[in-house]
C-alpha cells in the first residue's frame, strides 16, 4: 500500500460522502468537507494502516493531502 493510498482510504472511511476522484495530492482536507476532528482521525487511521507512529504534534499545521503524505512517508 502506498502512503497516498493509505491516506485516501482513511479519508473515504471517515467521510464516505467524498467523491474518491476529488482526493488528489493538492487538495486540503477542509475543501473535501473534513472537520479538524475528521483530519485527526484520517491521520491516525493512515498511521495504523501503514504500521507507523508519527508524533501527533508534527501534524499541527499539516492540512493538505500531499503534506500529510510527505510527513507520513518520512516515517515509513
Amino acid at each position, binding site marked *: 500500500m502506498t502512503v497516498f493510498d493509505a491516506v485516501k482510504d482513511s479519508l473515504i472511511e471517515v467521510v*464516505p*460522502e467524498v467523491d474518491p476522484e476529488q482526493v488528489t495530492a493538492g487538495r486540503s482536507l477542509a475543501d473535501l468537507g473534513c472537520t479538524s*476532528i475528521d483530519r*485527526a*482521525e484520517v*491521520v*491516525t487511521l493512515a*498511521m*495504523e494502516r501503514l504500521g507507523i*507512529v508519527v508524533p501527533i504534534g508534527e501534524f499541527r499545521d499539516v492540512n493538505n493531502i500531499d503534506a500529510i503524505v510527505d510527513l507520513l512517508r518520512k516515517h515509513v
Partner: protein
Amino acid sequence: MSRAAVVGTGIVCSIGADVPSFTAALRAGRSGIVADEDGLGAPISGWSFPDALDEGPLRARALRSARRAPPPVQAAVAAALQAWTAARLSEAPVPGERIGVVVAGHNLTARYAYDLGRSFVDNPAYLPARFALHAWDTDHVGTLSEVFAATGEGFTVGGASASGNVGIVHATRLVASGAVDCCVLVGALTEMTPLHRKGFAVLGALAEADGDPAAACRPFDRDRRGFVPGEAAAALVLESPESVARRGAEVLATVEGCALGLDGNRLADPSAAGEARVMGRALRAAGVEPDGIDYVNAHGTASRLGDETEVAALHAVFGPARPWVNSTKGLTGHCLGAAGVVEAVATVAQLTGGFAHPNVNLDRPVDDRTRFVGAVAQPAGLRRALSNGFGFGGINSAVVFARAVDGG
C-alpha cells in the same frame, strides 16, 4: 404539576426495531432473551444504523453525525428519529431554540472504553482521534442536537436502573416549566462488558443460563432467579399543550404526574416504604386516586428481593384497588439505563392499543392478591398507568401516564 404530552415514541430493542414491531411482540409475549458465550442477554441483533434510517429529511444529517459513533449513540439517533417522525416535527416544526434534548442513562461509554482499552495497551498511537468526544456520555446529547438542530437545554441524567424515569421527570419539568416547548428524551443503550456482567453476577443479581433462555427471566414468579440484561434505546418526544395546539400535533398520551425519591442508602437494598412513597407522590401529582390507575408497568426485574419488595409497595399504595400488573423486562430483559423509557414506550403502546402484555413466565406468582397479567395478552381499555423504576443506591421513581382521550 403541568402536564407534558407524549407526541412521538421510538424504540430499537431485542424484540423490535420500531414501535409497530415492538408493540406486536409485546402483544404476542415474544421474548428477546437468548444465551450466548457471555451468558444470558436480550441483544439487538441483525440491526445496522444506515439500514435503520428511513429516507426522511434527516437521514443524511444522521449519517454524517453518527455513522462512526459507538453503537449506543447510533441506536439513540435511530430511536429518536422514529419519535421525531411520529411527532411530525419536520413537517410542523418547533423552533430549534425551543427544543431540548435529555438523555437518560450513565456510564454509556463503558463498552467503548473497555474495548479500546485493550487495544490501547499494545497500540496507544492508534487510539481513534474521536475518543475524547465519544468517551463522554454527553456525546449522545451533542449528536442528537446536531441531527435535530436543537439549541434549547440539553443534558444527561442518571439514576442507575431508574435512569429512564429520572429522564422522563426532567424532560417533563423542562416542558412544564416553559424552558422548552418540546423535548427529545432518549433512554440510552447500556452495553454490558464482561467486567460489568461479572460485577452483577458477584452480587447474585444475574440470572444464570440454565435450560430454555426464554424461560430464564421470571418477574414475580416464585422461581425467579435474577435479571437478564437487555439492550435497547428508546425515545419519547414530549411537548407542551400550547405547542401541541400550535402545531396541530397528535397526542398519544400525557405524563400526568411523576415523583423521584431516595431511600437514604447506597446499597442494592430496596425499601417498600421508599417505593410506596414515590408511587403515592406520583399519584397525588397526577391528582389520581389509586383506583383511577388501571395498569402498572412494574420495575419487576426478576430479582428475588426486588420483586417481593415491589409487591409489598404495590399493596401499600393500592390497597383494595387491583390494577393490571406486568413487567416488560420479562420480554426485553432489563435494559438498565434505558429501562424506564423502554417501559414508557411499552406503556403508551398498551394505553393506545387497549391491552396489557403478558407475563410469559409467570407460572407461580409470588402473590395471589396482585392482578398480574397471565401468559397471554389481556384486552383492556386502559385509561391511566403507573410506571415504576428503582435503582441501586435507593433511587426510586414513578410516572403516571394517561391515554390521550382522557388526558389530552
